[in-house]
Every structure is written in structure tokens, then in C-alpha cells.
């Protein structure tokens, strides 16, 4: 620790003029939008200090990769080789990895190990290398805690299964298994049985890059408390806040309901853990932010329920330290108003805490501890609504894709608001659908995504606190708060609604929908009653100081109290409806758009009012909009805010095009309530969403679409399918991300789909369309009513049938004929104008004829082609950030100004296709499958990816290899590849197989596939699919590293699918590419065949040049 690189700033070392900031790459479970928020804030903060910022990130869907956030922006793969080239070119004096999550820290270690930092004399800022190792390597961490005298749970670090078994024999189960150096606890878990122990240890060792796991005495049931701490180079330390997990130890904190500040700790306990946290950050020598997790002795009733057989030697134990900005620090920042990333960045370049102004008050400094005068509740958003087969139990391995936060003056109200913010249908705390859900039969009292509702249901059935403590170990304080909610439910059920009762219910967070359900009224009637009784929420400010000082931050939450602190903003303004929690199908891309919408409004002199519930985002940063309401995105909350912002009789208009399906769903309610919407009308939205109206619309324009219809019953569906012919694509109407979308091959599958996978009723119609297997393309376009601007055309590498969010997409349409391009532009223009789009739209096309797979290496056969419309969405799509970055057209901003009434011509743009750039950009999806046990990874019409990366270069091979590299899908010469191809794809796969051989790959294949390959005379090793019968089988060759990629296609017959499941899961666990589309596999092997001079590394600006015509 004596030679900390970051510790001697301002002394002998040269001043920091240029700093490289590493982003966190694609969104994956455990590393989400919070790092865009942190990184963006840090870049701005560093530039305020006069530091020139070089930024690298592979994720285009980030604000931080906008060219105006940093001085030099690189959208390039996050590898040591790439970053070394950037360092060689930019020669920064410092590198700041602590804002890029675990990815950033791991890269810093790798860069140091590779000698890059020494070679280019780059100082590591923020967290010393030693500290990264101490925090990540369990053995180092143990020694460190021992040295500073802080308690750690009894444990042992092991490097093999044998060592693990030895410890288990000594101390017994349950034991916690924590792999070293993994994201979000990947590969870890709690073992209660010998079999679980064996399995988890094996997966933990496999997922740890250093094959090391920690075995720890289980502290399940203890209170889990976190502190966010900041330290500067003068050793001044503060804690920003502490947080208490409602779900006690045993569930990953990312998968826990978390409350800030702590609720059940006395001041003595609070200060004991605070002092420990300061001691730890000082001991680690961190300059910047840090997250510390501790376990505190539980309430005696919980302790009794736990029946532990060991006597703890301490009141608390230190569990984990994240020596960097983390998801928890994003939450803490939003919960307190204290900008941790901003302050951390300034500290990293030598500022002291008291020298940094508190941007929230504008008066005080950053050297203080926020005082909260409200309660904050965070609830994770899990993907199990999309993956009903996934294992819903949450343990030490994080599974949530996102989270919501709510603020109120009581815990009950904050909890209920957070529940509303989750946007899982209309699931309030009253929901009791878990019994009929796929979770039936699981133990819902163990930590899982439905536990909150299960506990509520149990309380309604008179379960006592004692019983529930025994099953959940949740502290009695939280259970009695939930009991109070149930008590109010009973009053609302049994009593006549009076102003006093309704006021009390609102103070406990009951929504109009809940009150209506219980008091037998429509939500609108409850709203009317509230108006009559003058019961409306007031808005209070999040000001970091509990009102002690006047604050300038425009950051508000609703509550039912006396004083309103948010009078309407004077003058022109518009509401931006955000996109809520990050979930599969609605990711950070929509937040990117919301942020740009807010900026565009402000630029146009219109005050921007942001509503969002997601603490991880840039949109909820206090200085993104003119005013931020941290609220659920439901009708009640949005209408209350609009009421609060209404001056006279003129409600402000809302922008709904950027908030994904969340905002689009709200558009109908807002229109119904007579509230204005900016841009395309609710009616235009309805034309695009209503199958019948849409069909009539297109036929009027003479634009073809695959035949199909919207159906309201099973018999109707069968009739339609028979008329249009199988295979058919089926999906519920009004959904995003292809939720529950499938391709079905025959009538029996159709019946299964309509009865098991979804339901079909007149209210919940299902769309049945003929499935066309062809080249898929999409465009985003801006329409002002006079012209339609198409920034660029994206062609998908995977043919139609793979959800567009899971497809690789190429800009520009390299492999399209001129005629095809003209048709796409013509259709887009006519649709935009005829539909009355004002603002954005996204159109997906399928091209019939020609080759479904096309690339410069395999050009299309010459043949007649025709273009069909798959769908039109009159709103911002997830490709907006990508297309903005590869064309330099500020799509979201232009669209916002169009919505305000400006024309494209007035802004200097014209209609048609924007000049093609001299570059190739390829977007590749990134999945988090290794985190989701039991989920099948094959590509299909239902979206599964959590994030994306971009490869950009001057030519196709360079862009393709970078996209594959960034998405961890690259093949190397000499790789072993396992093939298991469905019969219907065998013939077509021969091209791929030849290319693999040509690229020098060794082929392994399952029985049928191997026979086919042998028949063509090409070399292949046959590997059995039968797991129990012989060695090596398919799973063995994956696990022992014989193969480093898998190609496995599916027949579409669900019964055969289970066979391939083991192959795909094994590949996922082993973290090797698993191609389930022949097209992706072809692209990967062609990248290898086309590779000539490698790839270039350039600032994003340098690539952007129009092709001279």
C-alpha cells in the first residue's frame, strides 16, 4: 500500500491534463445503466476541472458515448489490446476505471498486468491496484480485515473441489459459496444440502477467472446493511448514506428490496457500522466512492427462528467491499441527491471533499453527510415475466435486470409506490396471482421475485408475524408495516369511504386503483372523490439536507402532506414520460432517448419535466431536466403531476414517444383524460397497434404485409392460420420486446400456444401472421408531416424470425440492392406521411426472394425480391442511439423539435435517406444467460438480450470482428466447434461447414449432423448427445475445453428442444459462443475468413464522413 499510484497527487507528479475513463460495456445483469449515469456524471465533472477526457465504451446506447460528453469518444471493444492502442494514441496521464463497474476494474488490473500502464506512464486513479486485488481476492480481503481489526464471517478460501469438501466436513452446512472476480456473484450461491454444495462449488470454481471460491459460515437471516462511503486524498471521509435490506442476508443485495436510510438500527448500531466503514475505506486507501456491505446481528425473534448452532464472536461482520462506484452508489445518489460519481471523479484528480461544491444546495460543500427526511424503497425488477421457466429463487447470484425506487414520507407509501413502479401488468400489492403463476409449487417464502406478494397474502390470511419471521427471517418492523397495509385494506373493504379514511389510505400509499378495488369503485371515481375532497398529493424536494438549507435542485417526490414545494413551472413546458425499470425489451436505449428529449426541449426554450422511477439512469440525474419527478409511471402519478403543473386550464403536453411501451401505454389513458400529447396523436398510435386498422391502412397505400389477422378466440386463430398457411408468427397485441411471441409450425402447436403460453380473449387479442423467412431490415425515421427523414437503413444478419433486439444489425444496408433501398425509403415515407406521424417511427421489413443470409463474403443470388412490412411503431425504438451514433443525426433531438412544431426544413434537414457514411457500424446483442438458471438461450421471436455493443470501422470485416469481439462471439483459427443442426437446416448448413473448415476450425458434431458432414467427405468427430451413455458426450467436450464454440439450431418442435437445452446451457455456463442461428455463425466464421489488416481504432468522430456521391 505504500506506493499507491493515486495517492501522491499534486506533489512530484505532473498535473493531470488528460484522463482515460473506462465505461462498463454492454448492459448485463449485475452491470446496468447505473454506469452510464456514473460515467456521464464523471466525464462532466472532470471537464469542469479542466481535464480533457478520453472515453472508451463498447455500448452505443449510452449518453456517455455522445460526442459532447467527453473530449475524445471511442466506441470500441473493451479489451486490453484496444485500450492499449487508445492509450498509445491519446497518451493520457491518468486512467479512471472506478466508474466502469467490475469491467472497468478488471481491465485496470489486466492493463497493469500487461505492463501497459508502466509502458505509457499512466497513473491509475481512484482505487489503488493493491486495493482492487484486496477487495476481489478473498484471501487478501481476509488478511486485510484481520490487519485493521474488522470482523469477517468464519470462512475459508479454496481452489479445488477437494479443499471445499474438507472445509464442509469440518464445519457443516449451510455454507455460502462466493467465486472470486465475478460480476454480480456469478456462479455462487448458498448450499444447504451436500448435493447443492457440490454443484455450486463446481460452478463457482468454473466461473472464477482464477478458479477460486470462498466458503463462508452462513449469515442467512442476519440484517444486511450497506454504507456508501467517500474518501479524499487528505483522508477526509464521509458516508453518503446507509441502506437496510428488507430481505435479510441470503439474497444478493441487487436482488433485495432495500430501504434507505436503515430503519431498525439504533444510533449506536448505525454509528458502529459507520465507523467500521470509515476504517475500511481508509485502510483500503480508496480515493473516491466505495460500497461496504455488512451483516448485523438480527432481531432476537429472527435469531430464534434461525436456530443457529454457532455463537457469533461479533455483533456484525464485514461481508463485501466494492472499491468503486456501484449499483448501490447510484441508488444512494438518487436516494439522497448526493452525486457520488461527480464527487468521486473530482477526488480522483486531486480535489478535496470540502473544495467541491454541493451542486444540490449550491451553497454548502461536498464534505457533509446527507440528511434524509423521507424513506426510500428500492425493488428489483426481475425478468421472470419473460422467462417463466427460469429459476425464480434469488440467492447470492444476482438475477434482476433493473430496479425501481420510490420516495415517500412513510415506509408503507414508499413500498406501495415502488410496487406500482415495477410495471408488471397492473400488479399492486393486492395482486395474488402467484398461486396460478408458473411459480406454483415453489416455496414462495424463500427469497424470490414473488415473496413480497406472498407475504402480503399470508398476512391477509391472518398469518402471525412469528410465523412469517420463521419462514422469511424478515425483521418484525417490516412485517408490522405490511400488516398496517393489510389493516387499511380491511378498513377500505369494510367501511364507508370518508375524507379521513381516504387521506389515511393515501398516506399509506394506496393508489386509486387499489382503493377502487377495495371500496368497489372505478379508479376514476376515486380520483373524482379526491378532487371533491381536495385530496391531492403535494411534492417535496430531495435536497440532501432535510430542508436545513435552501436548495436549488429541482428534484421532487409526491406525498400526502400539508405543504407543496413545487408550484407549476412558469412558461412553456412539456412532460417527458420516462421508460421505468430496465427490463428485457425495454432497456437503456429508451432512457437515452428521454434524456435527449429533455435536452432538446430545454434548447428550444421549453422547460422539460421528467417523470421516471428508475434510479440507475441519466434521466433521473438532477441536472438532466428542468424538473424531475421521481414517481411511478402509471396513470395516477402522471395525471397528478400534470395537474400540479397545470396553470389555469392549460395542462402541459406530454412526450410519450421515448419511454418505450410504458409511455405508449399511457398515451391512450392520457388522451382519454383529455390531456394533450406532443407529436403523433393517440389515434396514429392506435392505427399502428390495431391489427385491423393497420391492415386497412396499408392496403389503402398498396403496401404489402404478411397476411394475418388479430383474433379473439382459439377457433378464430385456427381458421386464420389455415387460411394464411403455416408457419405463423403469433403474439399478444400491445407488447414490447416480443414478449410471448412464437413461430408455430402447425395447428397443435398453435392450440398449445393459445392455451398454455398466453391467453386469448376479446380484451386480450392475439395476432396471427404468416411467417416469412427472409432478410429483415429496419429503419427509424422522423416525420414532420411534410417530409420523412431516414437517417439510415439497418439490415439484420439473422433472417426474420429472430427478434430485432436480438439480431445483429448492419449499417448501412451494405447487402441490399439499390432497388430494395429505394423501396424501403418509399414505403417509409408514404407510411409516415399517411399515418400522420409527428416525430419518430420505427418500421421493420422482411425481404422475400434473394438470399436470406447476405454478406460481402456471400453476396445475394440475383433474383426478384419484394419488401413486406412486418410492423410499424410510431415511437422511438431501441436502435435510436445506434443509428444516431453511426450517422451523426441527432435523431431524438430532431424528433422532439418536430413534436414542438418545427419542420425538418427549418432545422436544415431534408426528407429521404440521409447521406450514407463512409463507415460500417454493426450492433450486436449481449445476453446475461449465465445468470439465469433454467433459461434457454436460443434466439427466437421473443427478445432475450439485455444489452448491446457496437463495432464500427471503415469496412465490413473490421466492424464485424469488433462487434463480435465486444459481444464475446469471436471465433479463432483452429477453434474446435461443436455442431448440432436440426434436419430442416442441414442442407443449408453445408456452406457454414465448408467455411468453418476453410477457416481452420476442427469440427465436432452430434450423430445426425456428423453423418451428414461425413457424407460430404469433410473431417468431423462424432460426439454423442446421450449424456449418460458414453464419454466424451456433448457436455463433456464443452466443459473440458475441446470445443470453444457451439452451433445448435432448433427444429421448432418443442419436444426436441429439450435435447439441445443441455448443450446450450453448458455453452452458456462455460461462457463460449453458442450460435442458434446459422446466420450469426456464418457472420462469425466469415469475420475470420475476411480478416486482412485487422481493425482500426478511431474516435467516433473520425469515422463519420459522408460518402461522396
Amino acid at each position, binding site marked *: 500500500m505504500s506506493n499507491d499510484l493515486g495517492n501522491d497527487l499534486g506533489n512530484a507528479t505532473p498535473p493531470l491534463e488528460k484522463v482515460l475513463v473506462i465505461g462498463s460495456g454492454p448492459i448485463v445483469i449485475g452491470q446496468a445503466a447505473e454506469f452510464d449515469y456514473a460515467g456521464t456524471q464523471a466525464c462532466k465533472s472532470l471537464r469542469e476541472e479542466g481535464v480533457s477526457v478520453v472515453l472508451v465504451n463498447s455500448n452505443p446506447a449510452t449518453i456517455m458515448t455522445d460526442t459532447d460528453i467527453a473530449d475524445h469518444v471511442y466506441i470500441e471493444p473493451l479489451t486490453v489490446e484496444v485500450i492499449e492502442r487508445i492509450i498509445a494514441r491519446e497518451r493520457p496521464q491518468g486512467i479512471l476505471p472506478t466508474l466502469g463497474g467490475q469491467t472497468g476494474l478488471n481491465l485496470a488490473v489486466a492493463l497493469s498486468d500487461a505492463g501497459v500502464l508502466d509502458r505509457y506512464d499512466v497513473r491509475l486513479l481512484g482505487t489503488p491496484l493493491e486495493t482492487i486485488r484486496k477487495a476481489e481476492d478473498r484471501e487478501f480481503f481476509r488478511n486485510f480485515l484481520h490487519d485493521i481489526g474488522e470482523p469477517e464471517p468464519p470462512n475459508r478460501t479454496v481452489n479445488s473441489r477437494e479443499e471445499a469438501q474438507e472445509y464442509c466436513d469440518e464445519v457443516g452446512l449451510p455454507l455460502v459459496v462466493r467465486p472470486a472476480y465475478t460480476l454480480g456473484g456469478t456462479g455462487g450461491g448458498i448450499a444447504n444440502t451436500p448435493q447443492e454444495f457440490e454443484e455450486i462449488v463446481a460452478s463457482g470454481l468454473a466461473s472464477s477467472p482464477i478458479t477460486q471460491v470462498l466458503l463462508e459460515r452462513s449469515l442467512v437471516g442476519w440484517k444486511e446493511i450497506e454504507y456508501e462511503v467517500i474518501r479524499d486524498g*487528505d483522508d477526509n471521509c464521509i458516508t453518503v448514506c446507509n441502506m437496510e435490506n428488507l430481505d435479510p442476508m441470503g439474497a444478493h443485495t441487487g436482488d433485495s428490496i432495500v430501504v434507505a436510510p436503515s430503519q431498525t438500527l439504533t444510533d*449506536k448500531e448505525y454509528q458502529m457500522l459507520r465507523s467500521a466503514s470509515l476504517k475500511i475505506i481508509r485502510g483500503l486507501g480508496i480515493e473516491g466512492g466505495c460500497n461496504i456491505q455488512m451483516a448485523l446481528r438480527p432481531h432476537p425473534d429472527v435469531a430464534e427462528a434461525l436456530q443457529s448452532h454457532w455463537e457469533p464472536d461479533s455483533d456484525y461482520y464485514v461481508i463485501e467491499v466494492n472499491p468503486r462506484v456501484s449499483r448501490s452508489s447510484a441508488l444512494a445518489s438518487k436516494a439522497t441527491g448526493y452525486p457520488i460519481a461527480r464527487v468521486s471523479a473530482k477526488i480522483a484528480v486531486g480535489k478535496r471533499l470540502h473544495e467541491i461544491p454541493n451542486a444540490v444546495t449550491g451553497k454548502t460543500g461536498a464534505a457533509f*453527510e446527507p440528511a434524509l427526511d423521507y424513506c426510500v424503497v428500492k425493488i428489483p425488477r426481475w425478468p421472470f415475466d419473460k422467462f417463466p421457466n427460469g429459476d425464480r429463487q434469488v440467492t447470492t447470484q444476482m438475477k434482476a435486470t433493473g430496479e425501481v425506487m420510490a420516495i415517500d*414520507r412513510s415506509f408503507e407509501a414508499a413500498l406501495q409506490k415502488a410496487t406500482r413502479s415495477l410495471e408488471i401488468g397492473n400488479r399492486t400489492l393486492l395482486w395474488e396471482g402467484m398461486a396460478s403463476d408458473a411459480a406454483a409449487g415453489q416455496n414462495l417464502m424463500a427469497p424470490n421475485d414473488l415473496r413480497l406478494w406472498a407475504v402480503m397474502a399470508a398476512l391477509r390470511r391472518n398469518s402471525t408475524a412469528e410465523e412469517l419471521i420463521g419462514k422469511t427471517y424478515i425483521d418484525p418492523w417490516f412485517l408490522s408495516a405490511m400488516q398496517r397495509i393489510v389493516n387499511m385494506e380491511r378498513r377500505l373493504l369494510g367501511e364507508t369511504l370518508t375524507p379521513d379514511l381516504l387521506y389515511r389510505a393515501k398516506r399509506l400509499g394506496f393508489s386509486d386503483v387499489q382503493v377502487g378495488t377495495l371500496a368497489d369503485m372505478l379508479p376514476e371515481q376515486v380520483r373524482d372523490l379526491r378532487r371533491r375532497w381536495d385530496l391531492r398529493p403535494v411534492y417535496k424536494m430531495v435536497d440532501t439536507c432535510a430542508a436545513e438549507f435552501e436548495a436549488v435542485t429541482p428534484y421532487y417526490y409526491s406525498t400526502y402532506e400539508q*405543504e407543496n414545494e413545487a408550484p407549476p413551472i412558469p412558461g412553456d413546458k412539456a412532460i417527458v414520460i420516462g421508460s421505468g425499470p430496465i427490463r428485457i425489451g425495454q432497456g437503456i436505449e429508451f432512457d437515452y432517448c428521454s434524456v435527449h428529449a429533455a435536452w432538446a426541449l430545454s434548447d428550444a426554450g421549453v422547460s422539460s419535466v421528467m417523470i421516471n422511477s428508475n434510479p440507475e439512469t441519466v434521466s433521473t440525474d438532477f441536472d438532466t431536466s428542468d424538473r424531475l419527478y421521481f414517481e411511478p409511471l402509471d396513470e395516477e402519478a402522471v395525471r397528478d403531476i400534470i395537474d400540479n403543473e397545470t396553470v389555469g386550464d392549460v395542462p402541459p403536453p406530454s412526450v410519450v414517444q421515448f419511454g418505450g411501451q410504458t409511455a405508449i401505454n399511457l398515451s391512450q389513458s392520457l388522451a382519454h383524460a383529455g390531456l394533450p400529447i406532443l407529436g403523433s396523436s393517440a389515434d396514429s398510435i392506435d392505427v399502428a397497434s390495431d391489427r385491423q386498422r393497420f391492415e386497412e391502412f396499408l392496403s389503402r397505400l398498396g403496401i404489402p404485409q404478411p397476411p394475418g389477422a388479430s383474433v379473439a378466440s382459439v377457433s378464430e386463430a385456427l381458421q386464420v392460420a389455415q387460411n394464411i398457411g403455416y408457419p405463423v408468427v403469433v403474439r399478444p397485441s400491445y407488447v414490447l420486446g416480443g414478449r410471448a411471441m412464437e413461430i408455430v409450425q402447425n395447428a397443435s402447436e398453435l392450440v398449445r400456444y393459445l392455451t398454455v403460453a398466453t391467453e386469448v380473449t376479446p380484451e386480450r387479442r392475439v395476432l396471427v401472421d404468416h411467417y416469412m423467412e427472409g432478410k429483415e431490415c429496419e429503419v427509424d425515421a422522423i416525420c414532420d408531416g411534410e417530409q420523412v427523414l431516414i437517417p439510415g437503413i439497418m439490415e439484420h444478419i439473422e433472417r426474420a424470425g429472430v427478434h430485432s433486439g436480438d439480431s445483429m444489425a448492419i449499417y448501412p444496408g451494405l447487402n441490399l440492392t439499390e432497388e430494395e433501398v429505394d423501396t424501403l425509403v418509399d414505403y417509409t415515407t408514404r407510411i409516415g406521411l399517411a399515418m400522420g406521424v409527428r416525430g419518430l417511427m420505427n418500421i421493420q421489413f422482411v425481404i422475400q426472394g434473394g438470399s436470406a443470409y447476405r454478406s460481402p463474403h456471400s453476396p445475394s443470388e440475383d433474383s426478384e425480391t419484394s419488401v413486406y412490412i412486418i410492423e410499424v411503431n410510431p415511437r422511438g425504438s431501441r436502435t435510436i442511439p445506434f443509428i444516431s451514433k453511426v450517422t451523426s443525426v441527432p435523431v431524438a433531438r430532431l424528433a422532439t423539435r418536430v413534436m414542438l412544431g418545427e419542420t425538418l426544413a427549418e432545422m436544415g434537414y431534408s426528407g429521404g435517406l440521409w447521406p450514407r457514411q463512409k463507415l460500417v457500424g454493426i450492433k450486436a446483442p449481449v445476453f446475461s444467460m449465465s445468470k439465469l438458471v433454467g433459461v434457454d438461450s436460443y434466439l427466437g421471436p421473443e427478445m432475450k438480450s439485455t444489452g448491446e455493443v457496437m463495432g464500427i470501422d471503415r469496412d465490413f470485416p473490421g466492424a464485424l470482428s469488433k462487434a463480435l469481439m465486444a459481444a464475446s462471439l469471436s471465433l479463432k483459427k483452429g477453434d474446435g466447434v461443436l455442431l448440432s443442426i436440426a434436419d430442416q437446416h442441414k442442407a443449408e448448413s453445408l456452406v457454414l461447414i465448408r467455411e468453418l473448415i476453410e477457416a481452420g476450425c476442427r469440427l465436432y458434431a452430434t450423430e445426425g449432423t456428423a453423418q451428414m458432414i461425413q457424407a460430404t467427405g469433410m473431417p468431423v468427430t462424432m460426439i454423442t448427445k446421450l449424456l449418460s451413455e458414453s464419454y466424451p458426450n456433448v457436455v463433456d467436450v464443452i466443459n473440458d475445453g475441446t470445443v470453444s464454440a457451439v452451433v445448435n439450431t432448433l427444429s421448432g418442435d418443442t419436444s426436441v428442444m429439450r435435447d439441445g437445452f443441455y448443450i446450450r446451457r453448458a455453452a452458456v455456463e462455460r461462457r463460449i459462443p453458442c450460435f442458434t442461428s446459422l446466420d450469426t455463425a456464418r457472420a462469425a466464421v466469415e469475420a475470420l475468413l475476411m480478416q486482412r489488416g485487422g481493425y482500426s481504432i478511431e474516435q467516433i468522430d473520425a469515422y463519420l464522413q459522408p460518402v461522396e456521391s
Partner: protein
Amino acid sequence: MSTSASNNSVPAYLVLEDGSVHRGESMGAPVSRHGEVVFNTSMTGYQEVLTDPSYAGQLVTLTYPLVGNYGINPQDFESAKIRVAGFVVREHCDQPSHGRSDRTLDEYLKSQGIPGICGVDTRAITRRLRERGVMMGLLTTESPEAAVAQLAEMPRYEDLDLVRTVTAEEKYRWSAAGPVSARSQWDEDSGDEPGPRILVTDVGVKYNILRLLRQRGCEVIAVPAETSADDMLSLNPSGILLSPGPGDPQLLDYVVGNVRQILGKVPVMGICLGHQLVARALGADTFKLKFGHRGGNHPVQDLTSGRVYITAQNHGFAVDPDTLPAGLGVSHINLNDGTVEGTRHRDMPLFTIQYHSEASPGPRDNEYIFDEFLGMVKEFNH
């Protein structure tokens, strides 16, 4: 609003001298009490706040809305009884959850006849105090209409010598188990601690000061506020600590005179009111702050080292730096408003702090100050 949301709650009112009426529900004892209305921003430590003698004469509003969550326990008292005149909260918890809790907040208030009010918009009250300064108020379950007139009749906070209401009646020794009356055990108990004998003038001392001194091996004796300098010195103290306490130091000339006579003769440390008494003893002035400093998050800079400490604070008056006599220099300042947070004497063994190094409630970052004091004591007596 009580978390039990009972139907039969009794309305209560907090009436401020600016005429504003804040309606809530009664908790604690249903009696009327007046006092200076102040706010405290600590998120934990309500039990310590209630029993801190420096809050005598005040109606204390907590800005954190959820109060009483962990009940009341037998260990965390800062004096023998509740000292606040009344307690103002957004919500009190009558189903506390903690292994050490033996009663609820409401029960505790009731048992000592102290009124409280819950369900009021404490943030609105805080903003009002921030804008207009602290003011007198009446907490009542009776008609609020008469309250404003009543308030005008009642004595003002700065006119009350509150130290007399909280100081010890006679000197006492602090044992490991707590306070021991001097009369019964004085002789027998003496000399059980080998460390320095520290005299604490109790103008409203918090137990944690005594605990921390005792933990550091001191023999700790507390004496009443009126104790004369001669009587103090006759106990042969190795050092004297002037404790925190309530009210305006201008009213305390009877203590200031004694303090003046001990300065320079033994090492002295002053905390909070003790700090103000030292300043006044040496001729400096004190003045009233608009709304004071009450909470656990105030940044204080040590001007010698440049280091910043997060401190616990509870004071409504401050020392005027422009009136400090030669020899007494400002050693610490508050980074929020630049007010004096500590002084150190150039020649005498004497330093003072405006904040609370004993914390309780609040951050424990400043306990090292006691070590500095004992270092000074050791050096002086060497």
C-alpha cells in the same frame, strides 16, 4: 399520524408565534407545553435527543419522519430523564422492533409527562424555522385559537436560565455502572481509578462524555454549575471539562465568573455551552444563530491540519470571532456557515469545541478530542 392509525386519536396542535397552526395527533402526555421550536436533522438517536439536557426548554422537531422504530432501551439515555419540553414528529412507531427495546416512544413520553405531536408536516415546519428563524411555540391538545395570545404571555427562551433546571444538585462520581451519589459513597469509592481525576462542571452534561472519560481510565467527578472555583480546585483535579448545556450563555455570569478563575490553573476543555462559557470568561461575546445547528452531519474543519470532520451538533448560540481576546484563537470552523467551532489558547492549557465530540447521537469521528484533552492533562501535570 400514529402507525397504528387508530380511529380514536386525540387532535393536538403545534402553534408557532408567527400564528401558524399545525394540526396533528397527540402522543405522549396530553398536556400543554411551550418552548422554543427547533429542528434536528439526525436520522437516528431520538432517545439520546430526548434525554440531552441541552434541549431543555425546547420543542424539538425531528426532520426524519419515522421515529420510534427501535423503541426505547435502558442503555442509550444521555441523562436521568427526558429533557425536551415536547416532541414533534411526522410519524411515531408503536410497534418498535429491537432486541433491547423495553417500551415504546409513546409510553416513554407518557411515563414522564412529556407531550408530543405526530402526523404534522415536519418538513413544512422546518422550512418555516429555516426562513424565519427559531421561534416560540405551544404544543397543546386544547383550542389552538387561544394559543397565540397565550404564547405572548409566556417567558421567552432566551430569558430563562435553563442550566438551573438540568444541573446536578450535588457532586457525583461516574462509575462504570453510571452515576454514583457523592453523599453516600464518596469516600469509599475514591481512588478506584488510577488515571487522572477529571472534574466535569455539569451545566447539562451528557452521560456519554462521562462514559468516554471513564473508558479512558479517568476518575470522573461531576459538579453542579454553581460550584465555586475554589471548591473545584480544592478537589485537586488534573483537568476540568466544561460540559454542554442549554440556553443563552449571557445568563450564566455566575458560572462564567468561576470559569474565569480556573483558566490557566488546570487544563480545561469546553464543549458546546462550555466552549461559550470559556469565550465569555475571556471577554468574548456570544450571539444567537437564526436556527442553530442541530444534527449529526455538520462538517467542521480543523484550521491547523486542514482536515475535515463530520460532527454532531446541538447549539443555538455561537461565539463571535471578532470579539475573541488576544491569545484565544479560532481553531475550527463550520464549513456550512463559517461560524466558530473551536478555539485554542496560545498560552494556557485550554481548548474548546462548539460541537459534540461525545456524539451520541451522531458520528463518532471526534472521540479523539478526548485523547487530545487527556494528552494536554498529562503534559501539564508532568
